């Protein structure tokens, strides 16, 4: 019998440490599939973030580096500049990319580094126990916004993708979601495009993924997906931004 679906070579045959219903496992698998489909496994260098996905290299079967919190795009910039023939991507959460690392994010994008950025937006800090993220929604309760995020004190959810889109050196930005199977298929398509762009030398490409965090949202996995669709995607509209 012909095998038509199998574990990608770029993904180790192991179980993950992620919570039930977490989006990281899905996006890890998508990246592994895309790397295999493009035949770039032996050229890829991934940069794992600080946060829940810090040990992403335990699941990916290709070269990886860690980076300090927020500094992934500085590390990636240097690797790509000294090894332009490698395919370099960063995998970063909302705290990493849009809070502590905002500076590195904006400037790597503005330099037009030929990199692929996977930006996991779950509107909360997962690994440290569910504190407010820059992307936390108004009225969303977190460990550090016990009464809900209030614009008067904590500002508004930061729309980093829209902000980056105004920079002339940024070539591709798309916001996708894991809220359903059709949307997840679209997410894979966007992530693949972001890698193809780098292979083709197009320039800075970023895919923002709305991803569930059932544990710190205090919801079951099914309700989490519904919340992305009904609430989160209203604040962060899906689709091609640039």
């Amino acid at each position, binding site marked *: 019998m012909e095998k038509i679906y199998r574990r990608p070579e770029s993904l180790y045959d192991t179980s993950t440490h992620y919570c039930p219903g977490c989006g990281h496992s899905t996006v890890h698998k998508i990246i592994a599939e895309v790397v295999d489909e493009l035949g770039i496994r032996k050229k890829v260098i991934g940069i794992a973030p600080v946060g829940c996905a810090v040990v992403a290299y335990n699941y990916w079967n290709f*070269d990886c*580096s*860690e980076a300090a919190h927020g*500094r992934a795009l500085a*590390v990636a910039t240097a690797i790509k*500049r000294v090894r332009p023939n490698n395919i370099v991507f960063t995998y970063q959460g909302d705290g990493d990319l849009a809070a502590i690392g905002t500076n590195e994010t904006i400037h790597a994008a503005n330099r037009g580094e030929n990199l692929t950025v996977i930006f996991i937006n779950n509107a909360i800090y997962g690994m440290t126990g569910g504190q407010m993220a820059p992307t936390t929604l108004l009225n969303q309760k977190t460990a550090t916004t016990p009464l809900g995020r209030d614009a008067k004190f904590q500002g508004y959810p930061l729309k980093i993708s829209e902000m980056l889109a105004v920079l002339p050196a940024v070539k591709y930005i798309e916001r996708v979601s894991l809220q359903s199977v059709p949307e997840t298929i679209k997410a894979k398509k966007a992530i693949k495009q972001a890698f193809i762009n780098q292979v083709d030398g197009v320039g800075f490409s970023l895919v923002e993924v709305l991803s569930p965090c059932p544990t710190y949202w205090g919801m079951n996995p099914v309700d989490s997906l519904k919340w992305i669709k009904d609430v989160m995607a209203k604040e962060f509209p899906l689709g091609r931004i640039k």
Partner: protein
Amino acid sequence: MKNKILMSGNEAIAEGAIKAGCRFYAGYPITPQNELIAYMSSRMPEVKGVFIQAESELAAINMVYGASAAGVRAMTSSSSPGVSLKQEGISYIAGAELPAVIVNVMRGGPGLGNIAPAQSDYFQATRGGGHGDYRSIVIAPSAVQEAFDLMFLGFGLADKYRNPVIVLTDGMLGQMMEPIKVASCKFQVSSKKPWALTGCAGRKPNIVKSFFLAEGALEIANLKLQEKYKTIQEKEQRFEGLFLDDANIILVAYGSMARVAKGAVGALRRNGKKVGLIRPITLWPFPSKVFKSICQRNKKSKVLVIEMSYGQMIEDVLLSVNGKLPVEFIGKSGGGIPSEEDIINKIKLL
């Protein structure tokens, strides 16, 4: 003076780095090291290297982390407040066991301080500076020629031990111009880096990391680091000694300060005073062995430590002498530099 060219200390460090094989530089402007970043911006493209003016010191040191992880000799430079910002990255470089060279052209502190030369970052450089149990190798040139020459040692030791190397100098040496001989020299270290991130063709994937979550794993990694540091302490102590055979007063000074101290030694020797000098070239590992031999041989001597700080290196001297000889101190900082007269007057009181 044939075949010599006039260069500032900052430029000599940059050219020395390039001759030593540095092919990646990222930095951020700060006085008094700006000649270094400017020099790199013009020279790096000429040698097909990469130059990036980073958006911050944090980005610069993390770019160095990335370039080094990818197997390229990499350097950054800054001055005191900027190096404080780089400490996060230096700790990660030490933890991930990556080779890198970090130049600190010291100025006055704390805080924004001023742009006058100082040596008040000694503790920060030699004790780690960032978080965690780690050490950087610290080398301190005292002349423009030596600043050039020591870059070969710096990159060589960084590769040999996969460890950050700090070149600790100051605004005086950075700005000072002297004629130097620019030569190529090779520090014999294997250029093979099987651990580097190059893409996993023909081998298992490499991971560059400093995160050890499993119980006991970090302890094992840290014990391995400590073994490395012991080897460095044993093998890499370097110093210059002057008149140590008969000296009964031994001056201890490094970098720019040692130039003033040498002047004082010359003046005092002409007057028949038996004065000698120990000039540490490596500040970590501190050249403690020479102090131990002094304690055994020059039993009646006195030690005078001179620093452009209010007393930092003196702690290493005290540890090395271990109570066996009296240790005195002269220090100024924040723009003040102890003069030859200060040293001579102090010696009259000993």
